[in-house]
């Protein structure tokens, strides 16, 4: 008989987690910390979605090159999220447009949503964590 710790499946409840990213990537630690917590939730097989809004849209800007500032470029990690079954990435349309950006500027495929749709998505969640 299999011991509990040999179970492959985690039997805990699966909850709907939404991570709301509103900060630019390198000026503060919020973006990197959010990414770490997202990966933890994904490891526990939770239903994870990510939102990028306000300056958070800059986290997934293409072609980041941090060589000259001596900080790790963590933007390629967003492309690895798919491998953790984190595939619900939402970007707020208004935030992109006010910064002169389009989805062509982003390193990952995302779903662009308007603020009202985003509000509805937030209502559907069980846990919302804001960074």
């Amino acid at each position, binding site marked *: 008989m299999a011991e509990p710790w040999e179970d492959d499946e985690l039997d805990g409840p699966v909850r709907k987690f939404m991570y709301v990213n509103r900060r630019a990537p390198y000026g503060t630690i919020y973006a990197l910390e959010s990414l770490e917590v997202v990966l933890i939730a994904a490891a526990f097989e939770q239903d994870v979605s990510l939102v990028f809004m306000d300056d958070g849209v800059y986290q997934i800007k293409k072609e980041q090159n941090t060589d000259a500032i001596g900080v790790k470029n963590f933007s390629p990690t967003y492309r690895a999220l798919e491998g953790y079954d984190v595939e619900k990435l939402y970007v707020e349309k208004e935030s992109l447009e006010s910064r002169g950006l389009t989805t062509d*500027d982003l390193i990952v495929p995302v779903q662009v949503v308007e603020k009202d749709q985003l509000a509805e998505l937030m209502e559907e969640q069980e846990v919302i964590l804001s960074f």
Partner: protein
Amino acid sequence: MPMLHTVNKSPFERRTLDTALRHAVKGSAILLIEDGVYAAFDGTVVADKVKAALSDHKIYVLGPDVAARGMSEHHVIDGIDVVDYGGFVDLVTEYDKVQSWL
């Protein structure tokens, strides 16, 4: 006396750039660094305000912070000069003093 003002906060999140511009006398310079660099690009909702400021101030943006954020020097507003770390040092020596708006 002309002063160099550095701004390191995003113009979309904080009012630091507005405050710096409000207190910068004509002829003083603005250097955008860290998240402040996001003010330097065309096509944003703050671009008109920054372009208007160019009539009273030289405006510079720090290239390494632009590259780190994946932003293109080609999209920097006309009239804003991109400088490297050596250029930052030159500006500090060129102006009488530096005010770092945080």
